């Protein structure tokens, strides 16, 4: 019967001990990484919840801000002639109708085939916004609507002229087809429509300023 004593046991090579500090360094780094990875997972969960808030379908009974961030019109008007007698581009303004009432009217964007609007008020001192000393309702330039299934809104786009405003087009949108965030609506040219594209933005009322700034710009 044989037994292995300390003298007989195979000894590690002399350089083996040199690995100890290296292994301790790796172990400490690994330990820290393991602890913080769990915390990051929790943080990611919170972030993804926040993102969910800014996307998804509209909820019945909830009130939303809605505005067109961009409207593109065809190069010719309803009579297939140049805008403003071919001298300049159209001066575009839009209105949002909900339940037959005009609930929002935009400012006019001069000489534009692609007109854009910010959902945030341009009269606002931005420093106030950054300081968060104003409420979202004071800041937002958008219609407020309440989502109800099969309810519609209508967007009426006009070419603003001194004498009288010319029709560019009008389009009814079923609210069921919209979602929170950006919604693209592409339209075809016809004798009653010269709108090519509408970008609508929607955000739930009650969102904080950071979310609003993110989605409105």
């Amino acid at each position: 019967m044989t037994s292995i004593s300390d003298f007989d046991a195979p000894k590690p090579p002399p350089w083996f001990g040199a690995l100890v500090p290296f292994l301790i360094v790796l172990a400490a780094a690994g330990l820290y990484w393991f602890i913080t990875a769990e915390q990051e997972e929790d943080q990611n969960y919170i972030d993804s919840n926040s993102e969910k808030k800014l996307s998804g379908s509209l909820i019945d009974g909830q009130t939303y801000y809605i505005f067109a961030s961009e409207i593109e019109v065809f190069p010719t008007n309803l009579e297939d002639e140049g805008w403003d007698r071919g001298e300049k581009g159209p001066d575009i303004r839009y209105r949002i109708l909900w339940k037959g009432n005009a609930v929002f009217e935009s400012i006019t964007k001069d000489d534009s085939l692609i007109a854009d609007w910010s959902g945030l008020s341009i009269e606002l001192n931005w420093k106030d916004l950054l300081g968060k000393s104003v409420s979202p309702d004071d800041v937002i330039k958008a219609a407020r609507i309440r989502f109800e299934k099969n309810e519609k809104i209508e967007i009426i786009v006009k070419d603003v002229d001194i004498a009288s405003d010319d029709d560019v087009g009008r389009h009814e949108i079923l609210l069921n087809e919209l979602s929170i965030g950006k919604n693209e609506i592409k339209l075809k040219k016809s004798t009653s429509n010269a709108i090519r594209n509408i970008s609508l933005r929607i955000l739930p009322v009650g969102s904080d300023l950071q979310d609003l700034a993110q989605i409105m710009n």
Partner: protein
Amino acid sequence: MAMNITRCFIALSAFLLGLGLIAPTLTIYPKAGELTWLIEILAPEELETSTYSIIGVIGKLYQLNDVFLALLLCLFSVMAPVSKLTLYWQACSLSFRPKEFNRLLKAVHYVGKFSMAEVFIIALIIVVVKSFPGGSTAQLEWGAYVFTTSVACSIIASIGLEKKG
């Protein structure tokens, strides 16, 4: 007995080094001078506070194609300290063989010259960031102090080895 204490300091230094390399070391608060408020609206991501670990800084430099600086930082803040601690540990193991121990001690002295180089590199980063325009600022995080403590422990270990020598 003295060698065991030295070993404890080496192990502590190694542990703190591992932690210090991966823990938050530096937080940069970017600003754009008088236009800060405008940038916060137009491109808020540009002004987001960034926190880096030493390994993170090396990775970032590498991503920015600044390979030379990435290698320099890797050499001074990762490879040199690990090599130094490895040599210290090995020197402790050979303390009962005077000839080999003295030979290793010479190598330890040589590597020891890099002792404060790691801290110097961090100081350099802060100076660079502090000289950014627009009032950008940098702040040391707890990882920097852990890293510095690791360096201090390794210095104590080297003193222990020198006494033995």
